[in-house]
């Protein structure tokens, strides 16, 4: 039995259903991210776990006990909001100690725990400040400490980093992950940033219009996307309508050019359409040994992205983007030049029809 069991969860606002039949099990100590585009229902599910929103039907169990209809104050669930939501009238220490004070803890115990939390978020000297005297990143760390001070069973974070600038976002997400590992707290993290989800999660739930399209580890999600939606939402992707030539041998044709996949396409019939995909980083410029597939075309665009250079090659009808590492010694391909791109046979993904 998992620590958090969400089953057949549904939520409607009036006539519109924003969460349909959502099911998920989360183990104790696991870090799970909800990833999906705006409006897909991530926040709504998180708010149902926290108790701010009432489920229309279905159930939420935490640690074996039924939570579905419990008020938020009785759930012992820590919540971190995008807008920090620190109490403006209280100092940092007052904020962190708020939950303990409500729980009727003694002064000495509160002070000790607050000091411990301040140490944990690496702001040991800022206990006496007011929220408006802190930077965004510091405020969010205080909000995290406030949520954790009461030792909740579950930590919920709703896009906690999206109000921060890029550098802080990366360093704070690593800090959150390190803290979560150290405390072993079961965590649900909502984001619409795929890189964020991939980098810190044990498992990712890719959400699409109110249901989970795929649940898996970052590498499963990235390397074996279950649906076209997941494939296109997570990472950049070249998608093609390929024609199946020989299902048994894995032979298909992309834009009229024959290629071979190592993935199982035996379910398809000859001349069927199959959705196939290639990650830009799986492709290289130039041919290669016989074990690789090749496609030919002309260079259409070259974009400098810093660490990598993205090259777009036009085949006959279709276009394919590929990433090459930036190397100053390298000569950049020129627009209009004929080009050959190649990729390993196992890198050709087959996307199940949805």
């Amino acid at each position: 039995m998992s620590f958090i069991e969400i089953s057949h969860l549904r939520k409607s606002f009036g006539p519109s259903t924003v969460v349909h039949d959502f099911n998920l099990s989360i183990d104790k100590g696991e870090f799970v991210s909800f990833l999906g585009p705006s409006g897909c229902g991530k926040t709504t599910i998180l708010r149902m776990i926290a108790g701010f929103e009432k489920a229309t039907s279905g159930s939420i169990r935490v640690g074996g006990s039924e939570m579905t209809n419990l008020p938020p104050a009785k759930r012992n669930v820590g919540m971190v909001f995008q807008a920090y939501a620190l109490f403006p009238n209280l100092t940092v220490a007052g904020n962190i100690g708020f939950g303990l004070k409500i729980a009727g803890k003694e002064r000495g115990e509160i002070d000790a725990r607050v000091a411990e939390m301040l140490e944990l978020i690496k702001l040991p000297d800022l206990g006496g400040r007011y929220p408006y005297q802190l930077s965004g990143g510091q405020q969010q760390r205080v909000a995290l400490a406030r949520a954790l001070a009461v030792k909740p069973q579950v930590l919920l974070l709703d896009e906690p980093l999206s109000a921060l600038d890029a550098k802080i976002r990366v360093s704070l997400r690593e800090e959150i992950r390190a803290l979560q590992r150290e405390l072993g707290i079961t965590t649900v993290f909502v984001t619409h940033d795929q890189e964020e989800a991939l980098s810190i999660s044990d498992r990712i739930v890719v959400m699409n219009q109110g249901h989970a399209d795929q649940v898996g580890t970052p590498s499963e999600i990235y390397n074996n996307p279950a649906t076209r939606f997941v494939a296109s939402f997570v990472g950049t992707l070249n998608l093609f309508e390929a024609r199946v030539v020989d299902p048994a041998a894995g032979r298909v044709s992309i834009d009229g050019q024959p290629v071979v996949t190592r993935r199982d396409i035996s379910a398809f019939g000859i001349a069927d359409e199959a959705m196939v995909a290639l990650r830009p980083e799986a492709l290289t410029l130039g041919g290669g040994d016989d074990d690789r597939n090749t496609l030919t075309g002309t260079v259409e665009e070259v974009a400098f992205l810093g660490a990598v250079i993205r090259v777009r090659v036009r085949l006959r009808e279709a276009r394919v983007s590929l990433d090459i590492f930036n190397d100053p010694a390298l000569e950049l391909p020129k627009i209009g030049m004929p080009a050959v791109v190649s990729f390993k046979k196992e890198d050709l993904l087959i996307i199940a029809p949805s």
Partner: protein
Amino acid sequence: MKTNRLSHWLAILIGTLYFLVPLAATFEFSLRKIRGVYSFEAYRVVLADTQFKSSLGFSVVLAVVTIVFGMAIIVPMAYFVELRLRKLRPFIEFVTLLPLVVPAIVIVFGYLRLYNSSSILPLTNFTLGTNFLLACGYVTLALPYMYRSIETGLRSIDVRTLTEAAESLGASSGTIIWRIILPNIRSAMLSGAFLTFAIVIGEFTFASLLNRPAFGPYLQLIGANRAYEPAALAVMAFAITWACMGIIQVVSRNSVAARP
């Protein structure tokens, strides 16, 4: 650019004169009780009048009761409207404006009909009951001002998220209002309280028709029967008002120290 600045100063000057000239004239007049010399005789007479002290004291107590009572009703209401019933906001706003639309005399006759000595709830039968009725009437009169200032205060903080943050830390609604909401709308409440104070101190219709010894009817009485004393009273009223404003400035500046 230059003419522009000049016209700004001119506007300020005209505005200031509009307020200051009558005040200065009133002050000057109030000093002329003894023929031929300027003196504070009128003030001395007013301050020596026991009715002055008793009626002012009565009205101050009534103002404080009105403020406490009004806040106790309006703060939770405005909070829950902001939290859960935002759709009702235009309706509530309309209701809170009604006391400005319905004349006080109509309200007080309504009260007299409802609570007279032969009604089910004969509040006017005994002094405490009448005083209570008067305070309730004042809460109604002050409703538009109190509600508006509290609502402005509530809108300046993120009521929903702060409430949710406190709820997830185990706080009850009462605790949230007391520990989180009130401290953050303190200056808004103070300005509402100040307006209420000013309204109650000078109110005439309710107090007069309910026959209570309040400051408003006293002012009227003096105004009708004396020459210099009303001017002295008016100047004192201004002084009290300005003192209140000064106190509020100091208090809200101190509370600002804890806020952005």
